[in-house]
């Protein structure tokens, strides 16, 4: 995995882009938590594809988040990134919040995206099945929310830092505030910015993947996305929670390979 920078014109916004592997181009858009340390999904996808994973402003070393305030800002920003990366008919993969952004891109710029893979995307709201409010959750609750096997998830998430060290704690708080501050513009207090009324516009060949044990955005949302995007396919991965790609990377890779 390597990291480089991309500067967007005319804003001058500087974006960190993680790259790995060779093969067909695959754009990967991360969720609200950003990339995990040595992200297992990126690693698995890289065995088959050239994975290009830009970080949203507020994440990693990508800057310029103050000028991104709403869904349209973020969608157009990410389309600008896609254009600047000059990828060749990429498969566009987005996880959770990244899936919400990918779906918006495909709905708004339907001619620019023809292969779309949504991994447990955010963006819809069903009263009977409320999405978990991630903003009120404390760090120790995250493994259980993201993984079916919380103990294994805990090891994947472990940052190695000591929360009792004030300097590390401050850095952690700054990182958390930047990331979730940005995510809040799309997800707070309810992760619905009207995507549901635009999904009909998607003409891309669409694969939806959901962890069968997802407690953060329950699998019933997979059915709702499938219903709203014509011709889409839904694959449920057993033994996986919301971080379906990190918990079962091989299964997700196989599903993508089989579909596209």
């Amino acid at each position: 995995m390597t990291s480089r920078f991309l500067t967007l014109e005319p804003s001058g916004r500087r974006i960190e882009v993680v790259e790995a592997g060779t093969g067909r181009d695959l754009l990967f858009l991360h969720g609200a938590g950003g990339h995990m340390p040595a992200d297992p999904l990126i690693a698995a996808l890289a065995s088959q594809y050239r994975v290009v994973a830009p970080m949203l402003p507020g994440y990693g070393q990508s800057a310029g988040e103050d000028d991104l305030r709403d869904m349209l800002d973020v969608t157009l920003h990410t389309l600008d990134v896609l254009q600047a990366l000059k990828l060749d008919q990429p498969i566009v993969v987005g996880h959770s919040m990244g899936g919400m952004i990918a779906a918006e891109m495909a709905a708004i710029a339907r001619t620019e995206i023809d292969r779309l893979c949504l991994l447990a995307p955010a963006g819809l709201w069903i009263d009977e099945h409320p999405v978990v409010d991630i903003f009120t959750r404390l760090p120790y609750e995250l493994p259980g929310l993201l993984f079916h096997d919380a103990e294994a998830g805990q090891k994947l998430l472990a940052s190695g830092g000591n929360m009792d060290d004030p300097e590390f704690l401050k850095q952690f708080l700054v990182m958390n505030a930047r990331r979730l501050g940005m995510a809040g513009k799309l997800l707070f207090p309810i992760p619905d910015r009207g995507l549901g009324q635009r999904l009909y516009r998607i003409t891309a060949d669409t694969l939806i993947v959901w962890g069968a044990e997802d407690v953060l955005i329950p699998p019933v949302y997979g059915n709702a996305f499938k219903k709203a995007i014509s011709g889409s396919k839904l694959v449920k991965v057993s033994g996986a929670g919301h971080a379906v790609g990190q918990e079962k990377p091989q299964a997700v890779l196989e599903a993508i390979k089989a579909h596209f």
Partner: protein
Amino acid sequence: MKFTWFHLMPWPHMPDDFREKHRSVWVDLPSRMYEPEVGHGVYHQYLDQLEFAESVGFDGIGVNEHHANAYGLMPSPNIMAATLTRRTSKAALVVLGNSIALYNPPLRVAEEMAMLDVLSGGRLVAGFPVGTSMDTNYAYGTIPALTREKYAEAHDLIRKAWAADEPFAFNGRYTKLRYVNCWPKPIQRPAPPVFIPGGGSVETYDFCLDNTYSYSYLSYSGYLRAKLLMEGYWKRVAERGVDESPYRAGFAQVICVADTDAEAERLYGPHINYFYNRCLHVYPGFADAPGYRTIKTIQTGALSQFTAASARNYVTMSWKDLTENRYVIAGSPETVRQQMEELIKTLRVGNIFCLMHVGNMPDDKVRHSTRLFAEKVMPRLRHLWPEWNNHDDRFWIHPMQQPVGLRTAAE
């Protein structure tokens, strides 16, 4: 010195096992705990206490805004202040204040505060808090990272609306109004004095200094812990080269006065315990939504009052701990006078927000403590800033000369 008798208006009937049964006093505490017919009496008792405070000589009486909680029952402080305009005649009405990022359009705040200023004959002190994260983000749904930008725009609109004599157009990012036309307008021109509750961010220091607003630190952890924060403020004042009027700053303090120190513990101990262990029992996940604080503020290490409170273990803190460490200033009039003088001089503050109703304190104790403070403590603290003539016109109300007598008006 200016002393404002400040009411939080808590729900005084949280059960003894409150902490065990509920994770938070704010945001998700089921409202079945609230009993409206009991609330009727509670509200009127609290309003009576504010009126009593004027009658014994406090300079101001204060109310504030909170939502979805049992800590403070004033979703609309303006309604409370409106009732006070009718039965008081001298005290400043310190509305501390309206969380201006929550109103759509924020012009509503300009209008209501103008109404209060007109009703009271020019006695309004206008407070513009950002609001706690529990109120602003979780109860009212404002996106955390956009809260401050929205606040700044709302402030701009309100000041322009008060100042203008003709309709004007306001093209904001969050509010677009083709015709801004504030009827009524405040009596105090160009605006009532403005107090800003702050929690240690440099941006807020500068905001106060730019606009000649008084910086108000509302803390429950007492003046010893507030010293560092207030030193930061005064350092900024010096850097900016503005005058060091103590009236540029205010501090909130829990105060309990009795005839003796021992009597204070006996009378007020249980209510202090109720306040610190029930009223401040906020779930840490609600205390500070990510994005609510600026990165700069986090880097300076300032945490929210409620993050700090949840990290602190009040359950294990005794009356002795709370008073010796000056979370609470309590005791005989002489004890309280000494500690208040130390507070005022250490923090260099011209405004004190006196928290004298505490938790579930019954009315007779509230009045006893209030009267002792007004009669035996306040007069001896009045003249601590002789070099400023003990008053600063820029940070206090300017009532009209001859307000109409209400009784005459009724006849």
